[in-house]
């Protein structure tokens, strides 16, 4: 197995507040392989964007990485000096933000923003940087790129601006691109184009992508693997097909059931998970999901689950731990729901 481009191990992100220290991300681990597109999904506040920010080293104070490791191609980057980290940003990790309308400095020409980025990281002449900027614009599909170089951001439409943003993020060929909700702010009609563009351009460069979104449709279309976050913790991670079709974590399962399928029965009722995600200060003991989980049993309320293999995926749920003393009734219902419980007690078999 090749070395992962990004390897996050036991990441902890904390916010000291006046009510005590809040753990926004708690013991999160995942890898991204070269050329892979990892989708990161979860509700608002689950810690998706923070994970991205933590990786690129742009956590807003007072937020801080309080534990764990982040490795980029094997090199540890979570403890680098700000100056070293800066050379990695843009150069080795690119990032795309949610709102293309506000991501570009309105007072600078597109061309200048591009060349500035290129010149920051590459020791080439201004002329060469400009040529490269032009090629980039062409690559992301900006028509009349030559003249558009000297245009200001407000002269572009939203979709065009996001193309510029992609060009900027990929200007110096980073190994990893973190795309934080890149299409949320766009018209539905251009969303697909932008996602396709992102995917193509990353694939061309062999760059890995960490795609943060709450849009499962986009994930299903784009990602190779999916990582489901809940209350700052990993719920499930696995190949996109498995997670979408056969979610192994009760939360993931609830999440998938809540997605309307276009092909499905229009009269089908969408499932809903009762309750809501806990606030960071009020995460329950044991499994963070246990008060909302239909399968929760004693152990879920006292102990925090690790990630256990569950089919092709891994799920942080005791249903998948062979050591769990599963109440048969729970195991039965779980199995009915398609969850591959670790060991089905004999008496529950049909």
């Amino acid at each position, binding site marked *: 197995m090749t070395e992962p481009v990004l390897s996050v191990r036991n990441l902890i992100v904390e916010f000291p507040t006046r009510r005590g220290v809040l753990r926004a991300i708690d013991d999160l681990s995942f890898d991204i392989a070269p050329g892979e597109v990892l989708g990161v999904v979860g509700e608002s506040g689950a810690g998706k964007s923070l994970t991205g920010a933590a990786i690129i080293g742009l956590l807003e104070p007072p937020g801080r990485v309080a534990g764990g490791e982040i490795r980029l191609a094997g090199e540890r980057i979570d403890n680098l000096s700000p100056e070293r980290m800066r050379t990695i940003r843009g150069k080795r990790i690119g990032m795309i933000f949610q709102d293309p309308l506000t991501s570009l*400095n309105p007072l600078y020409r597109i061309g200048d923003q591009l060349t500035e980025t290129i010149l*920051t990281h590459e020791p080439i002449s201004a002329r060469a940087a400009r040529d490269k900027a032009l090629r980039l614009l062409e690559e992301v599909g900006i028509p009349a790129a030559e003249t558009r170089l000297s245009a200001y951001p407000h002269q572009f439409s939203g979709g065009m601006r996001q193309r510029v943003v992609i060009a900027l993020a990929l200007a110096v060929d980073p190994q990893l691109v973190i795309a934080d909700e890149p299409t949320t702010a766009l018209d539905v009609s251009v969303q697909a184009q932008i996602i396709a563009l992102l995917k193509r351009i990353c694939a061309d460069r062999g760059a890995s992508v960490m795609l943060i979104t709450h849009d499962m449709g986009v994930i299903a279309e784009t990602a190779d693997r999916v990582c489901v976050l809940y209350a700052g913790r990993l719920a499930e991670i696995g190949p996109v097909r498995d997670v979408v079709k056969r979610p192994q974590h009760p939360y993931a399962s609830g999440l998938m059931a809540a997605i309307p399928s276009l092909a499905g029965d229009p009269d089908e009722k969408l499932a809903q998970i009762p309750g809501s995600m806990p606030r960071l200060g009020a995460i329950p003991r044991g499994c963070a999901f246990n008060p909302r989980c239909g399968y929760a049993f004693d152990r879920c309320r006292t102990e925090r689950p690790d990630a256990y293999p569950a089919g092709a995926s891994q799920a942080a749920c005791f249903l998948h731990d062979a050591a769990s003393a599963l109440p048969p009734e729970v195991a039965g219902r779980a199995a009915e729901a398609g969850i591959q419980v670790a060991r089905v007690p004999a008496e529950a078999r049909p």
Partner: protein
Amino acid sequence: MIAYILRRLFQSIVVMLVVGLVSFSLFRYVGDPVATMMGQEASVADRAELRERLGLDDPFFVQFANYLGRAASGNFGISYRLQQPVMELILSRLPATLELAFVSGILAFVVGVSFGVYTALNRSGMLSSSIMTLSLIGVSLPTFLIGILLIWLFAVELRWLPSFGRGETVRLGYWTTGFLTPSGRASLILPAITLGLYQMTLIMRLVRAEMLEVLRSDYIKFARARGLSNRAIHFGHALKNTMVPVVTIAGLQLGSIIAFAIITETVFQWPGVGALFINSVQFVDIPVMAAYLMLIALIFVVINLVVDLLYYAIDPRLRIEQSGARH
């Protein structure tokens, strides 16, 4: 664009007419110029006659109309007090005020922007807090007191700087300048500080607030994510965006500086239009008061226009909207 400027010019004229009308309606409350124009021996009849000759008994809108009529032909009258043509008096005093305002403005702007940027970039530092607090002292005392205290300290006690006046000036055509002589430059220091202190604090706070706002914006985050150096981000991206509203407000403040010069000029016996105005008020020198107020209105109108155009030049978004609106 031309239509825009024409519209602004029209608005400006309206503004000036309103200012003129309001001032004229006020003059009769300031007092009776005849009381100061004639010696105590003048008889009641003499006074009445002079008042008649000056047209002071006319209703104010008649006086205003007469004034406008004369002003339209370039005649702003003769100062009741100094018996010289008002236009000439004001023009001879204007350089002093403009030089003072210019130096104060530059001082306020440069120091204000530097401190503002520093305190925005180092939000929690000791030095930042000190600057923030100390700068407030500058706006917590009335200008006249600051001026007097500066004179007391630097002129009387230390004898470093002159206490009054402009020092030696050099005449360059119509303009007299104090920039070219050592005493002229030394004389500028205390009044410029006195006058600029308030604006400096204002600009500093404005820059800090705007900069903090800008630093939190998405494009700064995106710029950081692209690995741009702090220098490029702070002084390239953030500062430029900060300066758009700051330049506008600082520009408008230049007008305030000229107006506030009244107090500074009085304290430092600075021979500018502000001191001329205050003396005129005390003498009820209506022609000078009217011309001064019109001049201030004109300066404001011009500054407003220039600031608008400047804004237009700095912010590309406006350029497009303006031209777009014309399509």
